[in-house]
C-alpha cells in the first residue's frame, strides 16, 4: 500500500468524521445565533439520539424507521424541556452563568441516562449493510453515505429555513438584536425555544446516524460535543457551510495527524490548529470581520 493510497484513505476517513462534527457543530451554531448561548449540553443530545434509538429498537422492538422518528422526537422533547426549565428562567443571567447552567444540564442528562440505561455500550445495525464501498484508492461504508446525505440535507434545509421562511428570518433577527426583534413583534422567547428544539433534533439525528458506526453509550456526548463545538468555532458560528468546512477541516486534520504524525497526539494537533485559527482569525475562518460596537 503506497503513500498515495494511504493519503486517499486518510482524507476520506477525515471527511466522514468531519461530516459528523459538522452536523453537531451546526446545532451549536443555531442556538448560539438565536440566543448567544454556547450550549455545552449539545453533545448530550447526540447521545440521546443514539440511546433512544437503541431503547426503542431493542427494548420495545420497534422497526428501525419508527425508532428513529421516536428517538428524534424524544430528544427534541428533552431539549425543549431543558430550555423551558433551565434556560428561560435565566433571562438576565451573565454568559458565564449560562455556561455553567448548560454544563450542569449536560451532567444531569448524562447522569440520568447512565441510571436509566446503564453504562454499557450498545451497537445498532447499520442501515444498509456492511459491505465496504471502494472509492478509488479508499473505502467507506454505506453508513458513511447516510452521514453525508443527512448532513447535506440538513445544511440545505437550514439554509432554506433561515433565508426563505418567516420564522427563520425572525430567528436571524433575534440573533442580530433580540430587543429590536421583540419591538417589531417577534416572539423572542418562542424563537429561543424553537432554536433549542431544532438543534436538539439535529444533534439527535447526528447521534442516530453515527451510532451504527461508532456505537453509543451514556458518555459518548462529551467528546463529540467538544469536537462539534470546535467545528462551529472554526466555521465562525455559521449555521451553514462554514461549520461544515470547519468540521471537515477538523476531521481531516485528525485523520492525517493520526496517520502521518502521531496517533496519540492527534487530538492535540487538532486543538493546536484550533488555537492558531483563533489567534489569527478570532471570528472564525469563514466569517467576515466585524467592528466592535460601543
Amino acid at each position, binding site marked *: 500500500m503506497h503513500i498515495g493510497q494511504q493519503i486517499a484513505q*486518510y482524507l476520506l476517513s477525515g471527511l466522514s468524521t468531519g461530516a459528523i462534527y459538522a452536523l453537531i457543530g451546526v446545532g451549536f451554531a443555531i442556538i448560539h445565533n438565536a440566543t448567544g448561548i454556547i450550549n455545552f449540553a449539545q453533545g448530550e443530545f447526540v447521545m440521546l439520539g443514539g440511546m433512544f434509538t437503541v431503547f426503542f429498537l431493542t427494548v420495545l422492538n420497534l422497526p428501525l424507521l419508527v425508532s428513529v422518528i421516536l428517538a428524534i422526537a424524544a430528544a427534541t422533547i428533552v431539549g425543549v424541556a431543558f430550555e423551558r426549565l433551565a434556560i428561560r428562567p435565566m433571562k438576565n443571567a451573565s454568559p458565564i452563568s449560562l455556561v455553567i447552567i448548560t454544563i450542569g444540564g449536560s451532567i444531569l442528562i448524562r447522569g440520568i441516562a447512565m441510571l436509566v440505561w446503564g453504562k*454499557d455500550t450498545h*451497537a445498532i445495525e447499520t442501515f444498509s449493510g456492511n459491505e465496504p464501498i471502494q472509492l478509488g484508492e479508499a473505502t467507506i461504508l454505506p453508513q458513511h453515505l447516510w452521514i453525508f446525505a443527512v448532513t447535506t440535507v440538513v445544511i440545505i434545509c437550514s439554509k432554506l429555513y433561515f433565508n426563505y421562511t418567516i420564522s427563520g428570518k425572525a430567528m436571524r433577527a433575534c440573533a442580530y438584536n433580540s430587543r429590536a426583534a421583540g419591538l417589531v413583534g417577534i416572539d423572542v422567547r418562542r424563537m429561543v425555544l424553537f432554536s433549542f428544539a431544532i438543534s436538539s433534533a439535529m444533534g439527535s439525528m447526528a447521534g442516530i446516524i*453515527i451510532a451504527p*458506526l461508532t*456505537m453509543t453509550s451514556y458518555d459518548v456526548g462529551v*467528546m463529540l460535543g467538544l469536537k462539534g463545538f470546535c467545528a462551529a468555532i472554526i466555521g465562525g458560528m455559521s449555521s451553514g457551510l462554514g461549520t461544515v468546512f470547519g468540521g471537515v477541516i477538523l476531521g481531516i486534520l485528525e485523520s492525517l495527524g493520526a496517520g502521518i504524525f502521531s496517533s496519540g497526539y492527534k*487530538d492535540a494537533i487538532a486543538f493546536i490548529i484550533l488555537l492558531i485559527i483563533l489567534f489569527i482569525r478570532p471570528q472564525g475562518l469563514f466569517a467576515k470581520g466585524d467592528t466592535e460596537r460601543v
Partner: protein
Amino acid sequence: MLKKSSFILTFVVSLAILAGSALAAPPIKIGGLFAVTGPASFLGEPERNTAQMVVNEINAAGGVKGRKLELIAYDTQGDATKAVQAANRLIKEDKVVAIIGPSTTGDTMAVIPVVEKAKIPMISCAAGSKITEPVKKWIFKTAQNDGLAVARIYGDLKRKNISKVAILTVSDGFGSSGREQLKAQARAYGIQIVSDDTYGPKDTDMTAQLTKIKGSGAQAVICWGTNPGPAVVSRNAKQLGLKLPLYMSHGVSSKKFIGLAGDAAEGILLPSGRVIVADLLSNSDRQKKSLLAFVKDYQKHYKAEGDHFGGHAWDAIMLLKGAIERGGDNPAAIRDQLERTRGFAGIGGVFSYSPSDHAGLTKDAFVLVEIRKQDFALVK
C-alpha cells in the same frame, strides 16, 4: 441513624440465631474502593456488584467464623484525589480491617501511601504490575498482570512464526500498561513492533491508524483496549479489508464485545481468564467449580454476564475470607495470612502468594480463545 443500626442489629441477631450462634458479634468491616462511575466504570461496576454479591452470600451462609461481613464501598470515579479521600474515610471513619480495590492502577498507586501508613491490608483489583513490583508489605492484587496476557499472545505469534506486529493501544491506564508490556517483552519472543499507535478512549473512527498499519508491513495486529474501542477497530479493519490476524487483549473478553463488533469479531484471537469459557473447561480444571458458581450467581443477581473484572473482586473477597478464617480479624493477622495463601483456585487463576510475590498468578491464568460463530472457543 439509631433506627438503621437497631434494624441491622435485629437483622444480625435473627440471622445469628438461625445460624445457631449464640452471640451477635459486630460485623467485620471490609472497605471497597471501586471506580463505579467515570471512564473506568466498566471495571468498577462489576467489581462492586460482585463484591456485594459475595459478601451477601457469605453472610447468608453464616458469615466468617460466625461473624457477618460488612462491605463499605465508595466510588472513586477513577480519580486519584477522590480515591485518596475515600481511602482515608474507610480507614479513619469506618475503621475497616481490610480494603479491596481500587479498580484502576492509577487509583491504586495513589492510595498505596495512605494504606501502607495506616497498616491496613489491601487487595487491588487493578492489573498494573508496578502495584506489586516491588513488593509492598500491605498490598496484594488479584488481577492478572498485563504481562501475562502479552506473553500468551506473543507465545501464539511465535508458534505461527509471525515476527512483525503492529500494536494499537488505547490511551488510558489499561492501554498504556499493555503497550509498555508489549514493547518490553517483544525482544524475548523475537518480535519486532513495526507500528506503534494509540487511539483515544472515546474515539469513534480508527481507520487512519489502521490504514497506516496496512502500509507498515505488519503480519499481525494487536489491539489493546476495553469496549467500545476494539469493536470499532474490528469493524474498521473489516471495512479496510485488512486481512491480518487480529489479536485483542483480555479487556474485551466478554460476550458484550462480540455483540458490539458483530460479524467483524469473527476470527479474532484474545487471551482471557477462564471465566468466559468456564463450561468448556475439562472437569479436572481446578478453577471450574468457582467459575461456574460465579457465572451462575452473577447472572441470577444482576441479569448480566459475569466477566473477569467482577472476578477480581470475587477473588479478593474470597482471599480475605480465607485469611480471616485462618488468622482472625485484625489487619496484621489478615495480612500475614494473605501472604500464606497457597493454591487458591479463584476466578482469575490459581493464587499462591509469598513474601516475594503479592500478585500470586502464573502465565496459566490466561487461556487463548478465538471468536468463532459469535462465541468463544478455546485455542489449544
